[in-house]
């Protein structure tokens, strides 16, 4: 009988005999054995003379807790979009076994059962970078369905595009008056130090013990496992590639701080739990892009967007400036860029945002900004994140007439534009 992954085997090469459990290798040229010491050893398949089966692998039954609904606790549905929040490392696949059922989830995070009654479902198993507008619609419909039965929804999500999804859901779910919290984990849940459990617990506690009723992101406040912040869907950005406190509110404040012990609201203006008459406004498959200004820009880059429905111009500094001025013989291309932007602007909404991330766009101060306004580029006075501007523009184009899109882009609909920017900055 041929040995399979997980089986205990004895492998002979020219000069050694090794006993261990067969583990999936990185490719077909190698064989990996888990030795008695627990260490894996990788062997060149070509050098192996014999593999003797010693004992077949027997899969262990995982004993998951029996879940009893507790009276007096709110009920929360956890919708999974993939990622590794509750995954485990496995023998059979050598990789990660996803764990999504309520039983599996509570087996891993038993403390949540004391906070809320849990329902749990897998919507999609995917990397967050692969998510598109169709997934937003699917997720929104599932949320609407769930919120008819439960008190709140937690969405587990890969962290790379949490900001986009949060903004998208808050636009789609017009009239939402129940909590929808998005959580992720920056450090994988197969490690003892993962931030997954803490983020999930804080989200559950916030839903269980507050009157909050809108879309928000729940992630670590600092590098310590002591507080999570409940952050506004449209004004939160991932500002670090790996830290657990990567998510920061830009041009605004978090709604609340949550620890295992207590909830502290940091703002009075937030959406509260209400009748929850949702008027769902889904995305269409519109073509919207983001074009980032950079030195030595070519008109071809701008021309590329001719067939799009809308474009966010992620420009420099105060006005979201683009290189549009002919200064000397070196800057002839800039004249072409300006002409091309003018053409595009007649066809579709162009929205300026700033690469500085923080601060408001003001196109009145310098002549470049004024020239951009002259050709109808939108975004003046707005402090929207580039990512939020992109989502909003696509959503407006999916649901409103072109003229209305141009006026609505500058109007605050979901907290995406703040009237006042106070002094908080990277604190």
């Amino acid at each position: 009988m041929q040995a399979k992954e997980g089986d205990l085997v004895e492998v002979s090469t020219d000069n050694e005999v090794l006993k261990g459990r067969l583990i999936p290798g990185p490719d077909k040229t190698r064989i990996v054995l888990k030795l008695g010491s627990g260490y894996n050893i990788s062997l060149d398949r070509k050098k192996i003379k014999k593999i003797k089966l010693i004992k077949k692998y027997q899969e262990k039954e995982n004993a998951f807790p029996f879940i009893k609904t507790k009276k007096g606790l709110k009920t929360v549905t956890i919708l999974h979009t993939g990622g590794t929040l509750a995954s485990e490392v496995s023998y059979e696949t050598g990789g990660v076994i996803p764990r999504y059922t309520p039983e599996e989830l509570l087996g891993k995070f038993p403390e949540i059962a004391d906070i809320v009654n849990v329902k749990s479902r897998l919507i999609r198993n995917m990397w967050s970078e692969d998510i598109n507008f169709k997934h937003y619609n699917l997720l929104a419909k599932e949320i609407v369905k769930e919120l008819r039965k439960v008190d709140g929804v937690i969405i587990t999500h890969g962290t790379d595009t949490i900001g986009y999804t949060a903004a998208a859901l808050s636009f789609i779910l017009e009239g939402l008056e129940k909590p929808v919290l998005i959580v992720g984990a920056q450090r994988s849940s197969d490690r003892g130090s993962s931030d997954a459990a803490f983020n999930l617990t804080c989200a559950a506690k916030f839903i269980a013990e507050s009157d909050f009723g809108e879309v928000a992101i729940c992630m670590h406040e600092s590098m310590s496992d002591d507080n999570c912040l409940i952050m506004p869907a449209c004004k939160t950005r991932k500002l670090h590639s790996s830290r657990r406190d990567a998510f920061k509110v830009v041009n605004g404040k978090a709604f609340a701080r949550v620890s295992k012990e207590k909830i502290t609201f940091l703002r009075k203006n937030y959406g509260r739990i209400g009748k929850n008459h949702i008027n769902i406004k889904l995305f269409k498959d519109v073509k919207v892009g983001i074009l980032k200004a950079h030195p030595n820009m070519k008109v071809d880059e701008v021309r590329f967007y001719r067939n799009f429905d809308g474009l966010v111009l992620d420009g420099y500094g105060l006005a979201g400036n683009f290189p549009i001025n002919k200064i000397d013989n070196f800057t002839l291309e800039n004249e072409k860029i300006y002409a091309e932007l003018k053409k595009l602007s007649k066809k579709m909404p162009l929205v300026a945002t700033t690469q500085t991330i923080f601060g408001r766009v003001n196109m009145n101060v310098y002549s470049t900004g004024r020239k951009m306004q002259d050709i109808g580029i939108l975004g003046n006075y707005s402090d929207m994140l580039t990512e939020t501007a992109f989502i909003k523009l696509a959503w407006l184009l999916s649901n409103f007439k072109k003229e209305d899109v141009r006026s609505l882009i500058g109007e605050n609909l979901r907290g995406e534009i703040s009237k006042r920017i106070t002094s908080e900055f990277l604190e």
Partner: protein
Amino acid sequence: MKDDYDKINFLCGIEIHQELSGKKLFCSCSADLKEEKKDLEIKREIRSSVGESGEADVASLYEQKKNLKFVYYGYEDEHCLIECDEQPPDPINQDALKTALEIATILKLKIPDELIVMRKVISDGSVVSGFQRSLLVGLGNEESFIDTSQGRVRIKDIYLEEDAAKIIKKERDNVYFSLSRAGIPLIEIGTQPDIKTPEQAKEVASYLGMLLRSVPGIRRGIGTIRQDVNMSILNGARIELKGFQDLRNMPYVIENEIKRQLEMMNQGNKIKEEVRKVNADCSTSFLRPMPGASRLYPETDIPNIKIDKELLNGIKKTELIDEKIVRIGKQYNLNNEIARVLVKENKLELFEELHKQFGMPELIARTILLTVKDLKNRLGLPSDKLTKKDFEEIFNYVKKGMLDKGLVSKALEDRLQGKFSLAKYKVVDEKELEFFIKNLVKEKGNLSDGALMGIIMQEYKGMVDGKRVMEILKKIRGT
């Protein structure tokens, strides 16, 4: 003796953990462990994580039950996001890898052609991530052994791993750690349970310690090497002893542990597998349950490390300290003790450079080892400040016949006191000296050799070699 241990079926193997110097294993933080300026404090929880086999590790569960919070202090230059488990690891430190490969080569272990970095689950807070990164560098075979006075002991394996954070204090449910030691490269050498007596355990530990100290890139000083002893006796269970302060006490500690187990069995108690701490009085006390085998899973953030022939061929095989002592003893005709001190005190390089220029091995070795110490101990002079240049100058005079070799110590003494002047040590003309002694014997022939020596040495103010004076004196007197 050995028979007594055979009777109780004493089985014993040891593990040596040696820290390396330079940078940390998976980041570029300093491994200097200075802990000068604290610039970070974070608080964490660690959940027990499930290993590949699907069973949570017993040791990890035990720690989780304790419901502890962990506080980590970071010090300038000695932590970054990697120790805080806020960033994936950098590629492995090549210097540390080469040191590990060299040790594996010296001990003739089989080095796999591809190394796999593993995560060893540790939930006591001493590793921020909840696991220690560790890789198997070499596996023992029939060629990997060391010969001791009590027989052969086989080497089982060698690992390269990250050191854990050092505990600072415990306060109620909070445990405080310093991140400075976390991630420092650590070599682990394990033997097979071939050790037959407690004394042999010490011999093996000393030999491996010597071997490690021979290789470049090893951290030196207290706490940079740690020994664990794994032992069992008939009807007992495997016990791991951790935290030996002094290698010399190792046999007593093992003796005491054997006695403890025998007494427990006499009282009808069963011995449980556990990890025990070595106390200052050579007794042991319970530390934690024995960790299980299911505590490792692959570190997926680091690709497997290919070990090609080119890399292995580039590994220099350093001469071991013991080999070096024998070699230089023979090469320079020095006695074993002098050779040993030259190596131990790191004076070999200086010795060899001076020897190359001037010859005179015995004089040079004695001067740089004994005279230097004597000047410091007897006269309180800062003789450790003497440089190679100082020695070169003095030996140059000796070689040219401008300074008697009996006066090297005096010349160095004067030099340290700023009173050095070559004229003072003018080599006394042999004929003139003989003439003086002849006359003296004629005049005061009734005095003893010792008394005459005193007069001669006073006349020449210590500027002549006493041994030579005595020879001349004896020749003239015909004694």
